[in-house]
């Protein structure tokens, strides 16, 4: 079962990374790139819990870091937090409604993009006060909110509809 989960995580992440890197995924909204890997990581977290969300975030982040020359591991740290926070829905007693998971994926995406800005500032890579920061955070969060049902559907397809085990 664990092996199948691992295969599902890798398959979902590979799909997201490949999609992000093809012409289809490179479209921009107001000059901002939507972050499809982040939405898949958040969907995995919201579907299977904090631990798998964090692990998926780490692996997804490393894959994303391979395509940029910013410090290797930067995206991994941010995605770990995103996956873990999305997985907090597992703490809710009883079944978690789909709408809640949807909202959580959108909200943690907003937070994740804001974390990117903070991390870049800490590493001296960008000025957090530049005019487009807010635009960047809102676009990524908004687009991820829109595509969240697709990502959640993919996660459901990959893991089945069973609830995550509460640790």
């Amino acid at each position: 079962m664990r092996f199948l989960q691992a295969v599902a995580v890798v398959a979902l992440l590979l799909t997201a990374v490949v999609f992000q890197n093809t012409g289809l995924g490179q479209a921009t909204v107001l000059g901002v790139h939507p972050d499809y890997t982040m939405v898949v990581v958040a969907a995995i977290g919201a579907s299977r819990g904090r631990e798998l969300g964090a692990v998926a975030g780490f692996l997804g982040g490393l894959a994303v870091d391979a395509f940029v020359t910013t410090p290797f591991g930067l995206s991994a740290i941010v995605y770990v937090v995103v996956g873990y926070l999305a997985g907090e829905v597992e703490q809710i007693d009883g079944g978690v409604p789909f709408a809640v998971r949807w909202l959580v994926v959108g909200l943690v995406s907003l937070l994740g993009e804001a974390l990117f800005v903070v991390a870049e500032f800490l590493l001296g890579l960008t000025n957090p006060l530049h005019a487009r920061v807010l635009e960047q955070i809102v676009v990524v969060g908004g687009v991820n909110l829109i595509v969240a049902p697709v990502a959640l559907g993919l996660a459901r397809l990959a893991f089945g509809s069973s609830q995550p085990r509460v640790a």
Partner: protein
Amino acid sequence: MTRLLERPRITLIVLLVLGLTLVTVSFRSPTAAKLGSVRTLVADVVDPIRGAIDAAFRPFATTVRGAVDYSQAEAKLRQLEAEVSQAKLLEREHAAAYEQLTALSRLLHLPWVGTIPTLPAEVIATTPSNLQLSFVIDRGSAAGVQVGNPVVGDGGLAGRVIAVTPSTATVLEITDPTSVVGVRLPGSGQIGAMSGEGASAPLSVSLIAPGTPLRRGAILTTSGLQGGLFPPGIPAARVVSVSNPLNALQEEIEARPLVDYGSLSYVDVLRWTPAGGGA
């Protein structure tokens, strides 16, 4: 305490520590060989899949784009026809001037971009990240591309190569917030530093003394100072605004890159590397 040490939290802490370690190693030693090989490995796995999917979907994407943007495409065609006609005229005028300049440069042993060998390349992807403004070209180290090589296209400076794999290279755009280009002003010949401010934002030019004459529309070229990242004379940006605030220590100048990154399809890689390597 039990809650703090539950398994998901331990996993989170371990992964964050791992991530921080990777960032620290990468930040302190950007050329760490092992990290470079991980990047190459992932790119090698994803690149063929990306190429196959792009090839499969290109007809569909082109059809959709053609249907949606038909009127724009027609207008663009008319504009291009007019530009080609003007360009043919200019080409004839420039041919004579180019020969003179090349001969003079050789005579004076001056480096100039026109004398630097180039390698044509196709833009195959833009880096799908908001962390970095860059694009990927279809030539890599196997074709002789090196880190630090300047890249030109669409009539101006596009950026410089910051990473290479055997088959591809990543080019940092001059609009990236980490990019700084030494530029020379037309007329006065003053040297300034042009910094990227992010996508869609104008470039800012600093270190220009107040009162320096400069008009809107002037073309800034690379300065090519010793130790610079680019050879001299590459047209880089067009001035869009100049202001001289009271008591300011320098002029406030904004410029737009000559390159339209949105429609950039082909570029030339200059086989030139900065004295320090440019990494």
